[in-house]
């Protein structure tokens, strides 16, 4: 079970993720429905995927996969997912920034896999706007909805940030010369 957070709200999920089998075999392609396919399937069967009669298409990049590989075919996708095999594998943060900042991906960018509440703030700054919480483990008294609702507060963990990011393209030192945020005076 995983709860979807989208644009900082709990949301319903219409997407089905297709994964390679444990034997490495590529999954079969359903005729309809919104599907997220592994990059390898896209590379092997783009024409089949594009010829489907109904349903939207998303692609999933693993940590080791270079977003440059989908940079020329972004218009084929309605969603790009980045998979975190473990939340301490930080490659997906760079993947997200590259997709947003270099390849100008404007659609849904979804973090999937081992996505935890305590990473939501950094993930969102790197350009993710959807998060499939791996919330089976730490839900309070096993209550997933309560856990997910509590997790929403993580987007507000910090109100300021020094660096440039997708969320705030100008670093703090450049924004200082613009409007200060509410109730704060710049030095």
């Amino acid at each position, binding site marked *: 079970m995983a709860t979807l957070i989208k644009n900082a709200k709990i949301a319903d999920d219409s997407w089905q993720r297709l994964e390679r089998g444990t034997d490495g075999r590529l999954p079969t392609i359903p005729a309809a429905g919104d599907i997220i396919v592994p990059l390898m399937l896209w590379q092997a069967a783009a024409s089949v995927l594009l010829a489907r009669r109904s349903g939207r298409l998303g692609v999933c990049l693993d940590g080791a996969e270079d977003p440059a590989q989908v940079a020329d075919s972004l218009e084929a996708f309605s969603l790009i997912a980045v998979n975190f095999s473990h939340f301490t594998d930080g490659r997906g943060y760079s993947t997200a920034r590259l997709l947003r900042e270099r390849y100008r991906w404007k659609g849904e960018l979804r973090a999937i896999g081992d996505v935890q509440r*305590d990473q939501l703030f950094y993930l969102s700054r790197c350009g993710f706007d959807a998060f499939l919480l791996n919330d089976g483990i730490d839900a309070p008294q096993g209550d997933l909805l309560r856990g997910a609702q509590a997790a929403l507060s993580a987007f507000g963990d910090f109100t300021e940030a020094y660096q440039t990011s997708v969320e705030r393209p100008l670093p703090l030192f450049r924004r200082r010369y613009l409007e200060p945020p509410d109730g704060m005076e710049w030095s």
Partner: protein
Amino acid sequence: MYQYDQADQRLVDERVVQFRDQTRRFLAGELSEDNFRPVRLQNGLYIQRLAPMLRVAIPYGLLGSRQLRALAYIACQWDRGYAHFSTRQNIQFNWPKLEDVPDILAHLASVQMHAIQTSGNCIRNTTTDQFAGIAPDEVVDPLAWCELIRQWSTLHPEFAFLPRKFKIAVSGAAQDRAAVQVHDIGIQAQRDASGETGFRVLVGGGLGRTPIIGTMIREFLPWPHLLTYLDAILRVYNRHGRRDNKYKARIKILVRELTPEVFRAQVNAEWAHLRDGPATLTAAEVDRITRRFTRPQYQNLDALSVQYTQGLARDRGFANWAARNVHAHKVPGYAAVTLSLKKTGVPPGDATAEQMDAVADLADRYSFGELRVSHEQNLILADVRQSDLRALWQEAKALGLATPNIGLITNIIACPGGDFCSLANAKSIPVAEAIQRRFDDLDYQHDIGELDLNISGCMNSCGHHHVGHIGILGVDKQGAEFYQISIGGAQGNAASLGKVIGPSFAQDEVPDVIEELIATYLARRDSEAERFIDVVRRIGLEPFKAQVYGNADQKREDRRRQLAAA
């Protein structure tokens, strides 16, 4: 001292709130041990052998007296009345309770301090020259650049989960006192012919189990590009550094496996996209940061105080201390002073709360209320009038902080070792103490002259044994604690890595071995001017090995004969 503005303060305050909630969830069973671990590590909280250990950041080693008093208060209130200054210019508390840590962090935040990124696989505390801003050989004052790097690296959203920890050091002087060659990134600030500041950038240096001297990948990076270039290096590392084996995950392995040329090309390719982007520094920002540092209001003094020179002539104890623990200052009539935390019998780098409070008072009275922590685990009062040195010496002596051993064999760098650390193979503190006792005689120490002796309790090399003139490494031999000894390491401009002299020794043999090494040196040196390290470089390891192991064989033989006779 850098003075926080509201944004700086808000961030550390919000970190306290965040960590308080994470701790609450962990204690309530709503955050598993596995998920809590990386989160607490990024707040400097380890679970150690005996209790949690909290590492507090002292950015680039600069500390105000008010902050030192807060650390002393924390040591009394939530710990056992002392703390340990580390080789990363940080401070560690060994006995806090997990549930108290949020309160400790809140107290730290009230004096503009934090524990952010003092551990974990992220960008750690940036370190620099303990004489930054005052050294006569300084070309560029590194402090503002260090603060810019601190801000850039603090809560950086992209680089919180790197393959491994990441350490940056900055030096701005002719003599490198920041060990820039053995850091993940070493930054040497320089000036070009027109006087503009730029940086020579080294990558892939490091100690640990694979010690490597860093490679220069940028000869002169003009200052506006500092942060975009760092972003480029970190992004290449974050994406391509090895994650399959934590012993091969540091950037030095990536640089070596790719070759420095390929690594440089990848960084340049990445930088081409980031260069001149919004993270490009502006003169206004560098000025703003520079102006947020309080700087001492120096008096106009004579270059050499008469009172000082008279004191030196009259008092041998004072002269001995001044020779080792007083350092040149770029402002006439001032000097920097090292308060030694290396008194024999006290674990290297440890200070009691009473000492911390007393040092804070000394800093207020003698050094504009500021001090520094050196990577050699001592405290520095950086701006003392020469005419005050004698009075300061007397006070420091009464506090047990005037051991005149800076640069000498008993100024041992040592990690906490097996007494505290769960990673260690062997203890460090008793070995340091045994060596200090063996060489306690000051005249003998002065005769031996400059010698860096560094001890690490395990391959993680927190005690920097690779760059000690003599390095001692704790190893595990079938469950027993043994010590491998290397010689020929050095830090600074002529950095080098020590070479192991041979099979390791039991703990009680170590002082004898050190004595043999010293005896070899004393017998072979050309003059008193030739230091231990110089002799090792000139004659190589063999004569030292012959003395140590030749004698060891002899001793074993003697023992066998004695036993046979008995």
